[in-house]
């Protein structure tokens, strides 16, 4: 737990995912990569948590209860303070439609389940260093 972003600072990752096992695994691999994580299990909580304290990267599941991933992403991009927050969309639906919709809403990266741990870590760290991401 010594490294995180390229600049050496510890990166804060918010995991929005409703499958408890997946949350546990993502937490483990990201913390091993030096990140600080916190997790929420529905879309409403994700929006509230970002408002309370914006993370460096949002790892966002598409199929969330209450507000789905699209609604969360839309709310983030429309917000005054966090419009540039880097978002990695995580989904069990790898369909082209989901990717296109997510892209049109300004997602930064898209990972489909089943994912490789390394891929998740690489994508998250790559975006964590970018700060305010270009839309």
């Amino acid at each position, binding site marked *: 737990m010594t490294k995180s972003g390229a600049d050496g600072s510890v990166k804060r990752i918010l995991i929005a995912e409703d*499958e408890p*096992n*997946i949350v*546990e*695994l*993502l937490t*483990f*691999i990201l913390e*091993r990569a030096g990140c600080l994580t916190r997790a929420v299990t529905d879309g409403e909580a994700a929006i509230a948590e970002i408002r309370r304290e914006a993370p460096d990267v949002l790892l966002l599941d598409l*199929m969330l209860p209450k507000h789905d991933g*699209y*609604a969360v992403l*839309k709310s983030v991009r429309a917000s005054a303070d966090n419009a540039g927050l880097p978002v990695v969309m995580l989904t*069990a*639906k*790898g*369909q*082209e*439609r989901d990717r*296109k*919709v997510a892209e*049109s*809403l300004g997602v930064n990266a898209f990972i*489909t*389940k*089943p*994912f*490789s*741990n*390394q891929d998740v870590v690489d994508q998250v760290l790559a975006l964590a260093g970018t700060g305010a991401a270009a839309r």
Partner: protein
Amino acid sequence: MAVAAPIGMKVRTRRKAQGLTQKSLAQKVGISASYLNLIESDRRAVGGSLLQRIAEQLGMELADLSGDQERRLVERLGELAADPSILQHHIDPGTANALVSRHPDWAAAMLSLSRSVRDADQQITALTDRLDQDPALMEAVHQVLNNAAAVRSTMEILSSVEDLPTEQRARFVEIVLSQSGELSGTAERLVALFSAGNTRNRSLSPAEEVDDFLIQNQSYFPPLEEAARDLRREIRSFGQTIEGALTAFLQQQFDISVYNRSPVEADLSRFRNHCHHDEANRVLIFLDNAPPSTRQFQLARLACQLTAPDLLDTVARDELLTSDEARTRARGALASWLAAAALFPYETFLEDAVRHRYDVELLRQRFSASVEQICQRLVSLRKPGAEGIPFGFLRADPSGHISKRFPIAGLPVPRSGNGCPLWPLYGAFQTPDRVIRQLAEFPNGSRYLFIGRTVRHEPALFHEAPFLHAVMLACDVVHADQTVYADGLDFAARHMATPVGPNCRLCSRSDCLHRGEDSILYSR
């Protein structure tokens, strides 16, 4: 004259079995032998007391000779003759009478086979659509991917992290075991869902192949867009107004004259979309009642066909189009596409569409176009990097039949037949000329904004009735707020959405009050 029911062969066979000549039977029932001959060869309809006398003399029940059963067979064979899958045999429906008369068993067997083929076809269509529309299946697939993700991620940790504390290692092993267990259970459910049969490739009609071809290309053809730009530039040099320029262009470049004709004098069987291109005489004839938008469009379409035949051929050479008929149809569709691209230039059209928030009425007036032309051009705004909202488009006639379909990815539109009666595509017929919008939610949870309205074809003369059909645009709800049609609608309130389906047969909403027929999703 009433068509004779094919009972003649029955009478003749029975008469001969009883050892009677035509003359003797004719005498017994009080008619001439030549008249009986006409009856036996199905050239005279027979009924009433004469039929009763014949039945009595031959010792038959009247019902056997009423011809009702045969008449039904003949009618159904007539329908079969019009089936697109056997059109190439050019069967004359008029010969059904003879077949039923001479070989009733063969006729019945053919109908029974055609019914089996139709049932199988519907079942295959349903199975093909099923993955997108069956919530149980979607849920199962979603669960499998979640379980697989957990197993894969845990196994990667277990195999790559050497310094795992014993307690944590035990926890990860537990995750693998529980997730593998769930995976087996979900796999069994999937097998059960599929146990009714497997999907396979069905043979498609030429029209369906063209639909697939357009959908595969997302209704966007870069070479045609480029050709349209050049063509537009060239045509504009022929006149001030588009219609005038197109007319002069056709006259000067291709020696084609444009005329109008009264619908009373025209051979209407040659006209399609209010016009007829007489190649031999080098004329394009419009019916007097052709609206200006149709004139402009058909002039452009012919200009495109004549200017770019090789290009249309090249684009229509696609592996999805497997027959000459499919390629010919595709060339026609592409010519229309090219005409639209020439009349409504991409950049200008997109800019106006975005600025006016996809208001079809406003765009229609701006481009002197019909509602349908505007809707189809909106669908084609798929240029990478300069895309409009992804729109789907459907057109239906008052019988409910969907005559045009450009679905967008994910929108569960059945491949054939009618759609859901709750779509504004059908509701529009109740309030002609008014735009109806609907926030629609499908059983799989996907939500779309539907915008429907009717389009009226004005009658050409007093004795003709106006004809309505309905058109509908569809876009994913995430894009809806970019359109005027979303104004005042609350998309966050899920309970405001209308629960719809693809159509009754493919819909899982067992509690829908509007169900017209049983769903096949859970019946097998």
